[in-house]
């Protein structure tokens, strides 16, 4: 178990073969079938290459060149946790569920696989998504939250901490969330890194929102400086349901968050907002696929990226309005603030509209800090560094303002606080 695996997809496949009889669900044919399907997909595709349209701007060479081993934190290690951002909390340490540190509605998926039958794998796609396939092949644990119709689940923090050192490690958590009709939940998914070493965090979140359900989903990526964060969210919203999400990338060497959201019933709603704060040497990629597959749905998306030093940011936002999706109301905006001449942003909005009665607008801007604004602040005695911080914060404010839930806003505020000082 302590072995270092060879680099490339082969290393992961070999590990799957080696772990096969110890992975959760080995006695449950439906789980085995999911894993086999995923392994076949991963075997045939390997890591996504930049030749693929969806991967043009994000290079996984770093991932492909690294041989990863398995995370080995003892399950009973004493651990000082950061302050919780929500009243309930479920904690994963190196991907392992820590019952002793968790409370609230969320359960361990690994220990409750039977309860997820019919749900796990029902939203995620693996055939054309190698990273989701990799996760499905190798997942060991994750959170299971299944709220009955009408329930109010309150607010839960899903905290994942990965410790890294000299030996690259990898963790593939699988989180499964279902909200019954009319149920509500605030979920703050937070990824933290401890240590400076290389690791891969490859979570997949599957979300089913039944009629009128309402999920507020914050994803806060604060990985360590050596982290590779490759996450995929799949969310299906039924009639009248709302998927209100906010993605924040602050940490990691390389991060990409993909969201595949489908509005499947009339009057469903999605918010796919986000912000990326990228310092020298970081790469951040926010990629979303939004399907308007029913009439009278609305979607809102504002994504802001701040880039310092030699950082690189990517925004890809595809909105697919199916022919049946009449009276779709869509809005997409992405904006980048370049703080350095060496930073680069690639922005690709993509609208495919097959219905004729729709309202869809989108826009993109790339700019630098405004010299007039800087001078105005400095002319009032405000030091240049503070003035810059104020303007960067103001740039992000609009995105954060779109978050209605107070708990989430506070969590986001904590995560971004002081970032501007670190890049000055």
């Amino acid at each position, binding site marked *: 178990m302590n072995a270092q695996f060879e680099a490339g997809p082969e290393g992961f496949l070999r590990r799957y073969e080696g772990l096969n009889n110890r992975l959760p669900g080995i006695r449950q044919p439906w789980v085995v079938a999911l894993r086999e399907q995923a392994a076949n997909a991963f075997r045939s595709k390997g890591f996504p290459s930049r030749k693929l349209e969806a991967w043009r701007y994000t290079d996984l060479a770093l991932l492909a060149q690294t041989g990863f081993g398995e995370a080995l934190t003892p399950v009973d290690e004493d651990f000082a946790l950061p302050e919780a951002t929500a009243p309930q909390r479920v904690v994963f340490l190196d991907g392992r569920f820590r019952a002793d540190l968790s409370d609230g509605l969320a359960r361990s998926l690994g220990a409750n696989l039977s309860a997820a039958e019919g749900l796990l794998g029902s939203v995620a796609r693996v055939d054309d998504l190698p990273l989701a396939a990799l996760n499905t092949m190798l997942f060991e644990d994750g959170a299971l939250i299944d709220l009955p119709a009408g329930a109010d689940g309150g607010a839960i923090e899903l905290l994942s901490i990965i410790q890294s050192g000299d030996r690259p490690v990898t963790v593939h958590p699988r989180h499964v969330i279902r909200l019954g009709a009319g149920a509500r939940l605030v979920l703050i998914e937070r990824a933290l890194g401890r240590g400076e070493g290389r690791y891969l965090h490859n979570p997949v979140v599957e979300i089913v929102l039944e009629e009128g359900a309402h999920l507020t989903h914050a994803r806060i990526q604060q990985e360590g400086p050596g982290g590779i964060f490759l996450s995929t969210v799949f969310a299906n919203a039924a009639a009248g349901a709302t998927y209100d999400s906010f993605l924040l990338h602050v940490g990691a060497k390389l991060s990409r968050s993909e969201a595949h959201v489908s509005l499947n019933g009339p009057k469903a709603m999605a918010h796919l907002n986000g912000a990326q704060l990228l310092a020298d040497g970081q790469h951040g990629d926010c990629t979303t696929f939004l399907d308007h597959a029913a009439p009278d749905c609305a979607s809102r998306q504002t994504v802001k990226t701040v880039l310092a030093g030699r950082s690189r940011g990517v925004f890809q936002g595809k909105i697919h309005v199916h022919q049946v999706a009449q009276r779709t109301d869509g809005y997409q905006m992405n904006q980048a603030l370049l703080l350095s001449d060496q930073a680069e942003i690639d922005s690709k909005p993509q609208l495919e509209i097959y219905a004729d009665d729709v309202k869809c607008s989108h826009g993109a801007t790339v700019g630098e800090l405004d010299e007039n604004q800087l001078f*105005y602040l*400095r002319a*009032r005695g405000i030091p240049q560094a503070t003035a810059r911080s*104020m303007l960067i914060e*103001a740039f992000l404010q609009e995105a954060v303002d779109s978050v209605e839930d107070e708990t989430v806003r506070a969590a986001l505020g904590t995560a971004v606080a002081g970032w501007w000082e670190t890049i000055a």
Partner: protein
Amino acid sequence: MLKIEGLTAEIDGKQILKGIDLEVPQGEIHAVMGPNGSGKSTLSYVLAGREGYEVTGGTATFNGHDLLAMEPEERATTGLFLAFQYPVELPGVGNANFLRTALNAIRRGKGEPELDAMQFLKLARARMKELSMPEDMLKRGVNVGFSGGEKKRNEVLQMALLRPGLAILDETDSGLDIDALKIVADGVNAMRGPEFSSLVITHYQRLLNYIVPDRVHVLMNGRIVQSGGPELAKSLEETGYTAVQAA
């Protein structure tokens, strides 16, 4: 006291200020009048330290401090204040946060203790009342969605809070109706005293009916061509700048 000697400056290689000599003794208010393109705004920006203006000669000191050697924020903490002709909008920066950050920066510079949020609000509300400003202007983004008059009042509010030793008013009267003009003038007049001097830069004499200057200087083609008492402003109004040029 503000002392400018032989000040020359250019933008993009084009000389705009061609040797300005000007003294504003402590406690006095001086007006600088001039037609469009005479260098009025350049003079105020050069004094405040805006980038893009190259000083090619001369000196400018305030109470003995070499203004031209300082960063804009250092000039501000030394006591210089520029009321902008076109106040800048700062979307996403709350007015209250902006005002408090500026005030505390100035107070730090003076070696005074910083104000906490409560102390600041109390002070700001009092000053706003004097300027007939609605309190919700504190909650809005700096100058965002403000009318022209509101922006200028916001400039005067900043001046009233920061209490500069020298205020440069760059065409503060432009775009103001008569009521707003009076409020702005009252704000400046309230600052008058032995510790306050001001350079009122304007195209028109109108503002000087409300802020009566101790001296009036006429700026034309990058030079001060005439100086006199407040009556000079009135005669300019009657004869126009072309008459001065001819003289």
